C-alpha cells in the first residue's frame, strides 16, 4: 500500500466520520460544524487528484458560501444555545421509506457500474486546463444549454427572493 493510498483511506474515513456526525449530533450548530469537516474532506480528495481548480472551488462554494449560509440560518433559529435538542419528530419512521429507497437505488446503480477497476487520472502538473472548461461552458456544442438553464434557475430564485421579501404596501422597509 503506497503512501497516497493510506492518505486516501484516512481522508475518506474522516469524511465519512464527519458525515455520520452531521446526522447524529444533538446540537444543530455542531452538525453544521461537522458538515464543514465533511466538505473539507472532499476537498482533500480533490487535492489528491492534483486538481487545484476543484479544490479551490470546493472550498469556495461549499465551505465559503453554503456552509456559512447554513450556519447563518442555524443562528437564526431559536434555542440554539440549549443542550440536548430534540432532533427527531414523530414522523421519523416515515423517513425510512425515502432514505431506504435512495440507498437501494444507489446500491443498484453502483453494482451495475463496472468502472471500479480504472485507476484515477491525476491532473497535469501545472493544473488542469481552466480555459477549456470556460470555453466548454459557453460553446453550443459543449454545455451551453445546461449552463443557461441553471442561470435561469438562479434568476428565478433571485426574483422569488425579491417577491417574498418585497413589502407591497409601499411602506419601504
Amino acid at each position: 500500500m503506497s503512501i497516497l493510498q493510506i492518505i486516501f483511506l484516512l481522508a475518506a474515513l474522516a469524511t465519512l466520520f464527519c458525515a455520520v456526525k452531521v446526522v447524529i449530533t444533538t446540537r444543530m450548530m455542531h452538525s453544521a460544524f461537522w458538515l464543514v469537516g465533511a466538505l473539507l474532506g472532499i476537498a482533500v480528495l480533490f487535492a489528491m487528484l492534483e486538481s487545484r481548480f476543484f479544490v479551490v472551488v470546493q472550498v469556495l462554494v461549499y465551505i465559503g458560501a453554503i456552509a456559512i449560509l447554513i450556519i447563518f440560518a442555524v443562528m437564526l433559529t431559536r434555542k440554539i444555545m440549549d443542550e440536548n435538542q430534540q432532533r427527531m419528530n414523530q414522523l421519523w419512521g416515515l423517513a425510512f421509506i425515502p432514505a431506504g429507497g435512495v440507498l437501494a437505488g444507489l446500491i443498484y446503480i453502483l453494482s451495475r457500474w463496472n468502472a471500479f477497476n480504472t485507476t484515477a487520472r491525476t491532473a497535469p502538473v501545472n493544473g488542469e486546463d481552466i480555459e477549456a472548461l470556460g470555453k466548454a461552458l459557453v460553446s453550443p456544442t459543449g454545455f451551453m444549454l445546461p449552463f443557461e438553464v441553471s442561470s435561469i434557475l438562479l434568476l428565478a430564485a433571485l426574483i422569488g427572493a425579491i417577491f417574498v421579501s418585497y413589502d407591497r404596501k409601499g411602506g419601504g422597509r
Partner: protein
Amino acid sequence: MSFVADPINFIADWLSKLLLGWGLPPDLVMVLLFIIGSGLLATVAMLWVTILIWYERKIIGRIQDRFGPNRVGPYGLFQSIADMIKIFTKEHISPDGVDWFPFTIAPIIAVGAVLAVWAVIPFSANFVGTNLSVGILFILAIGGIGEFGIVFGGWGSNNKYALLSAFRAVAQLISYETPYVICFLIPVMLSGSMNLNDIVKAQDPWFIFLAPLGALIFFITSIAEVGRTPFDLAEAESELVAGFNIEYSGLKFGMFYVGDFLHSFTISLLFAALFLGGWKGPWAEQIPVLGFVYFFIKSSAAYFLVILLRASMPRFRIDQMMDFTWKVLTPLSLTVVSMTALVDKLLPANLIWVRIGGLILLNIIIFIATDRLLDIYWKKPLFQKNNQVEDASKASSVKLGAG
C-alpha cells in the same frame, strides 16, 4: 544569480544543493524547502505585525494630537514587543460552558487564514510561495475559511454578546463579499489570468488607471471584509462590549489581535498587487530585490489610507451598512465590470493612451451617473416619507399629550 540581486532564491538554491549533496531524495528536499520557506514567511509576517501596530498607533496618535507610543526604544518602536511579552505571560481563562473545540480553534483559524493568503502573493519578480494558476479563487476560498474563525469564536464562547457579534460579522461578510468578488473580476479580465504573478506582469499601465472605480470599490469592500472602523460593527464597544472575542484572554486574544492587523496589511498587499502594479517598477525584473522594496512601499501607502480611514470615519449603523452594499456597491460594481469589459474590447489595445483615456472617461461618467441617481433617490418622496416617520410619531404623541 548573485546574492545581492536576489537573496531568497540564492539561499534556496544553496540550501537545496546542500541537502541534495547529503544524498536526500529530491522530493523530500522540495518538501523540506517548502516547510522552511513557509515557516520563515509566517515568522516574518508575525514579526512584521509588531511594526504595523507601532505604525498604526503612531499615526493615530498624531491624528488625535497625541505622541503615540514614545517610551520603549527609539520612537517607541519596541512598544509592541513589550506588549507581546506581556500577553505571552498572561493566564488563559476558559469561561464556564464554552464549546471547547470551536473555542480553541477559532484564534488559530483567524491567524492561519490570513497567513495562507501570503502563500500566493508575488513579493518580487521570482519570489512567490506557490505559483497557483487559480490564485484569485484561492484567496476568496481562504477568505471563506477565515469567516469560520469569527463564527467559531462567537459560538464557542457561550456568550450572548459574542454570538450576536459573530452574527453581525457573518451578515456583513456575506453582503460585502458580493461586490468584493465582482471587483476581483476586473484585474482578471484585464490581464486574462487568475495567477497573481501574471496579473502583476500584465499591469503595464497600473490597473488603477484602467479601472479607478473598480479599485475604489475593491478598497472599500476589502476594508469591510477585514472589519475595520467604518465597518467594525462586529466589535462595536458601545453595543456589544467587545465583540466576538470578548471571552478570550492571554495569547488567544493576542492571536485575534495579530490576525486583525495582519489581515489589514494583507488587503493592502492585495490592493497593491491587483491595482498598483505589485512589484513593478524601474529595474524590478533585473534586480528582484528592488521588487520587494516597490511592493512594500506601495502596500504601505495603501495601508496608510486604511489607517487614515480608521482614524477619521465614524462607525456605520447596521442598516446604513447593509443599504450601502446592496443598494450602491453591488449594482455599481456590476455596471463597472460589464461596461469595462465592453469599452475595453472596443478601444484599440495598442494605443495605450487612448485606452487609459477612454476607460477613465467611462469611469467618470459612471461615477457622475451614480452620484445623480443617489441624489434623485435621496429626494424621492418615498424616502422623505420614511425619514419623517419618526418626526410624525413624535408629533402625534405631542398631540395626544395635548389632547
